[in-house]
């Protein structure tokens, strides 16, 4: 594989990598039919991002001879290559990415001003294809706005805010911070922002709905969109279906897929409160702080699990370690996102049988400490 990016595209590439670093700790690189895909997923599999760079993004694009080339590496190592983001466009003239399949190294060469050459030989690991299932076309609601609008909106919410709720009617959009506990809601500061449909470049609301998702991961995309000036499109449906944020131009397509809180049949979303909470779950070293996010999830393509998902009975202590044991398998062709639940670590989520249509569930790995037979433990 040999790709060369020049001029301003080097900075775009660097920004894409920085955006992905807001999602997960590893960067998945895959050469696909349409170009080069850079992907990342968070540890709870509730946020996924993909930047697809078409061959035209590059001055020169030579796909790897082995068409199914894919690898992953710690995102920090590749971020280190593009460390001084601010001076990138001033100093870097050309960026070349080459694959050395014999030595399992990815070589990134930056040709800078004054003849300076920076060469980084990064080691990578083989991995399975990482692809989330989502279908933008089937979403009932589509909004498109200038990135500035979204950045300005999000500015009103404190940086520590985890979840935000987006509600739409036929002519308005509300953004509110999402507060879990009813008790807390008396003490928490509530912020509500209302935008008229006129603020949006495109406003198509098929069904009035209200979805809640994690704001933190979204910020990564907004920073990218803001710097590129490209409009951001939001596709969403009913609660439980992921919300997809997309930024597209002729040579690049970025999709951020975020899980949404499913509509709980139980009125209180806090059934995962301190009682059922895993006793020593403090802060999970993870994006989701609150384990009330019982049903966050993204439909991830995984291998079919043999049996029905089994329901955890007690929160197993090593749950937090389970997050790395999700199977990453070949993409399976799936339909539009179903209301799938993922029992996340915290053991809390127990989807009721009625809410489980077809379960391709990783729940087994999440829970029982001995159900590792299908697990492909990731070599670290």
């Amino acid at each position, binding site marked *: 594989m040999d790709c060369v990016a020049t001029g301003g595209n080097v900075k775009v590439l660097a920004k894409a990598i920085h955006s992905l670093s807001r999602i997960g700790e590893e960067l998945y690189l895959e050469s696909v039919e349409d170009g080069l895909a850079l992907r990342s997923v968070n540890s709870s599999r509730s946020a996924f991002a993909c930047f697809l760079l078409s061959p035209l993004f590059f001055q020169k694009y030579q796909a790897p001879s082995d068409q199914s080339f894919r690898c992953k*590496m710690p995102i920090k190592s590749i971020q280190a290559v593009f460390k001084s983001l601010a001076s990138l466009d001033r*100093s870097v003239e050309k960026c070349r990415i080459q694959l050395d399949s014999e030595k399992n190294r990815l070589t990134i060469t930056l040709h800078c001003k*004054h003849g300076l*050459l*920076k060469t980084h030989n990064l080691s990578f690991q083989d991995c399975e294809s990482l692809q989330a299932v989502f279908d933008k076309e089937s979403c009932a609601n589509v909004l498109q706005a200038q990135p500035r609008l979204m950045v300005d909106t999000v500015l009103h919410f404190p940086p520590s805010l985890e979840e935000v709720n987006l509600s739409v009617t036929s002519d308005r959009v509300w953004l509110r911070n999402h507060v879990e506990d009813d008790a807390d809601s008396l003490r928490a500061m509530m912020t509500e922002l209302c935008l008229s449909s006129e603020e949006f470049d495109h406003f198509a609301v098929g069904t009035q709905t209200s979805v809640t998702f994690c704001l933190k991961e979204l910020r990564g995309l907004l920073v990218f969109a803001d710097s590129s000036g490209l409009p951001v499109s939001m596709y969403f449906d009913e609660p439980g279906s992921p919300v997809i944020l997309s930024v597209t131009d002729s040579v690049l397509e970025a999709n951020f897929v975020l899980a949404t809180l499913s509509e709980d049949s139980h009125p209180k979303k806090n059934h995962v409160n301190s009682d059922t909470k895993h006793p020593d779950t403090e802060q999970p070293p993870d994006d989701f702080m609150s384990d009330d996010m019982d049903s966050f999830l993204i439909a991830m393509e995984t291998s079919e699990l043999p049996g029905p998902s089994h329901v955890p009975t007690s929160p197993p202590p090593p749950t937090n370690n389970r997050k790395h044991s999700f199977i990453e398998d070949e993409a399976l062709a799936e339909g539009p996102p179903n209301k799938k639940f993922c029992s996340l670590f915290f053991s809390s989520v127990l989807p009721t049988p009625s809410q489980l249509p077809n379960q391709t569930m990783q729940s087994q790995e999440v829970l029982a400490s001995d159900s590792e037979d299908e697990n492909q433990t990731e070599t670290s």
Partner: protein
Amino acid sequence: MPLSTQSQADADQYILIASLDNARNLSNILKAISLRDHAIFNATQNGLKVTVEDSKCLQANAFIQAEIFQEYIIKEDAVGFQVNLTVLLDCLTIFGGSTVPGVCTALRMCYNGYGYPLTLFLEEGGVVTVCKINTQEPEEPIDFDFCSTNVTNKVILQSESLKEAFSELDMTSEVLQITMSPSHPYFRLSTFGNSGNAHYDYPKDSDMMELFHCTSEASTCKYKMSLLKPSTKALALSCKVSVRTDSRGFLSLQYLVRNDDGQICFVEYYCCPDEEVEEE
């Protein structure tokens, strides 16, 4: 000026008096060598030399010539003492870092001799602070015996280009490898870290390269990253840097620093090569 209202009697006792209208001309350069707590001061007629050493493998020196000082009086051939550099820097910057133009701290540094503290009179905006810092017996700085005859390779670069490289160095690498060669890659900095290795190549015809002098053979030497990383401070202050290695693999980095008033001072770093221990 309050500082000069000291009685003449006091002034007679001092064997060293050095005054600066802008204390930053001293503090900035001392920050560039502040790798350790203790600094050895050696004052001669020519000026002040301050030395800091680290684990007997690295030595950093700052030279502030007598001409830099507004007043420089030395009553002996050589005056030496050792002080805690961190404390000294705290005192020199005691008025905080005011960046208001025209406002700066004036300094009068005085020393009575062996056994006496180092006395600093600092003044800013009419406020005077007197600091007395205990001194110790000065240690003998290591003589790295780096003489120009043994120099095998020498390169002079504009600091601008090296600054970026140093700030980006992979800190997970234990060593920094410096390669100087008459052919490609000419001048190369390499790191070997957790995620892989990285090379920064400076071609000899780069316009950042002011001088490229390499003997017929290429030399590649490794130096402990932890020892060299602090030199980034000196690099940040400087406009030019000379990199020299000698036949033993010892490294000499010399930085040309311009102070606030445009005067030139020098900072140099000497470093031993990282020998591979043959016990693997």
